[in-house]
């Protein structure tokens, strides 16, 4: 693995040059498919790009002191983490290096939601604080399922490297794990049944209430990149191992697109759940499922 390939991976595919347009595209697909399912026409194709440019050109309220500096830095940290997570996805075959490390990927995927929690509290807005508290409660409940599901996949196949996992043939246990991950994605991406951290109109805009202009643009972009990273993770685990790199990239994009459509359909068909119902859903229903998956993975591992 030499430096040029690493840089190309981080900057071109699946890194920034691919990821930023893909983030806008996924945001558009989500809005458009929800609109189509509601019998509307929906936003034009370039809408997320226009929103981004417009937000960049707006002014921000004056912020002073350490709290102001913190508030400015949270969206940048979230953006960097989400971009790094996308760059780590092992779409192209590789050898050596740190990319495709599952533990680093999980940490980077978790950082944006940490930043959202911190941003809500440092904005000192009551709505931001309520949103952050909800996000924290939700992330404690879905993350256990999410981590257990990934752990069960990794334990059953004896590796923590995403590229090695992608190369191995899939097993029924792995499909179970992927299913558990997909159940967690709406909460991770703040989609409809679990959209209460940023519950629109109910608590204004949740942790984002005080953000405006370019800072909000960074949040939108990091949300889009989270879409790419999270769907990309599932797509990598689902995709069959293919020799030709262009075929692998195509399958990766098609699978990500299918997952975005699935999540948008769920978001359009459901209404927002209350916090106790959401937390109970993750703790009672899916936790059992995840514990089953990991115990069978460990069992398989020690018997083999």
């Amino acid at each position, binding site marked *: 693995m030499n430096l040029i390939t690493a840089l190309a991976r981080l900057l071109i595919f699946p890194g920034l040059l691919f990821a930023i347009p893909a983030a806008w595209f996924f945001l558009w697909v989500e809005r458009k498919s929800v609109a189509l399912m509601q019998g*509307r026409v929906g936003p034009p194709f370039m809408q997320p790009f*226009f929103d981004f440019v417009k937000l960049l050109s*707006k002014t921000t309220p004056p912020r002073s002191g350490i709290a102001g500096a913190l508030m400015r830095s949270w969206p940048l940290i979230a953006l960097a983490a989400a971009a790094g997570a996308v760059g780590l996805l092992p779409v192209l075959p590789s050898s050596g290096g740190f990319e495709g490390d599952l533990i680093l990927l999980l940490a980077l995927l978790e950082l944006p939601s940490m930043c959202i929690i911190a941003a809500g509290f440092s904005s000192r807005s009551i709505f931001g604080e309520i949103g952050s508290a909800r996000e924290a409660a939700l992330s404690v409940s879905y993350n256990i399922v999410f981590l257990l599901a990934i752990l069960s996949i990794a334990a059953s196949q004896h590796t923590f490297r995403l590229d090695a996992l992608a190369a191995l043939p899939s097993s029924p246990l792995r499909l179970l794990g992927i299913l558990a991950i997909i159940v967690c994605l709406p909460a991770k991406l703040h989609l409809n049944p679990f959209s209460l951290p940023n519950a629109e109109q109910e608590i204004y805009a949740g942790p984002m209430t005080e953000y405006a202009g370019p800072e909000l643009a960074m949040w939108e972009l990091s949300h889009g990149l989270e879409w790419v990273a999270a769907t990309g993770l599932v797509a990598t685990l689902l995709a069959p191992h293919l020799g030709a790199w262009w075929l692998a990239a195509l399958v990766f994009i098609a699978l990500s697109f299918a997952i975005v459509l699935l999540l948008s359909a769920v978001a359009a068909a459901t209404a927002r759940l209350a916090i106790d119902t959401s937390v109970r859903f993750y703790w009672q229903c899916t936790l059992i499922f995840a514990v089953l998956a990991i115990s069978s993975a460990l069992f398989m591992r020690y018997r083999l």
Partner: protein
Amino acid sequence: MKLWRRLVCYARRRSPWLFHMNSGSCNGCDIELVAALTPRYDCEQLGVRLEGSPRHADILCITGPVTKNAVGAIRTVYGQVCGPKAVVAIGSCPATTNVFIDSRTLDGPLQKHVPVDVFVPGCPPRPDAIIQGVAKAAAILAERGMNPAETALAIATPTRGVDSFTEERP
């Protein structure tokens, strides 16, 4: 630089985000504003989004005849919307205080307190008139982007003349 400015103006026209504020309206206009987002009128085609926080909005949509209680809130919210911004007065109430004129609980019309860019008359106006008003306000925003001096003027002077009227559909 010039290209960037033109892109920004185009983007502003294509992505007006609204914040809806009720200043004592009878709820008729509010319902019509929400109706503009429904499948029948679907103003998301123009990039319109109804935002939860005034910090995110470009266009402030105000309904109602401005009660004395609402004046402080209107000033605060107008200050919270980040520039460049525009104000759309929806309904006859904010324009003239309508049937509530001479009420001792009112401190209207709206133009006494914030500069209004577009009036959408009607009691209540039809959703397509509201959409037309929002589109005009978005065009005004784009023009302001081309001319930064005017943006400063619009922020500095509290009462700005009426830019345009949208007609009510029969």
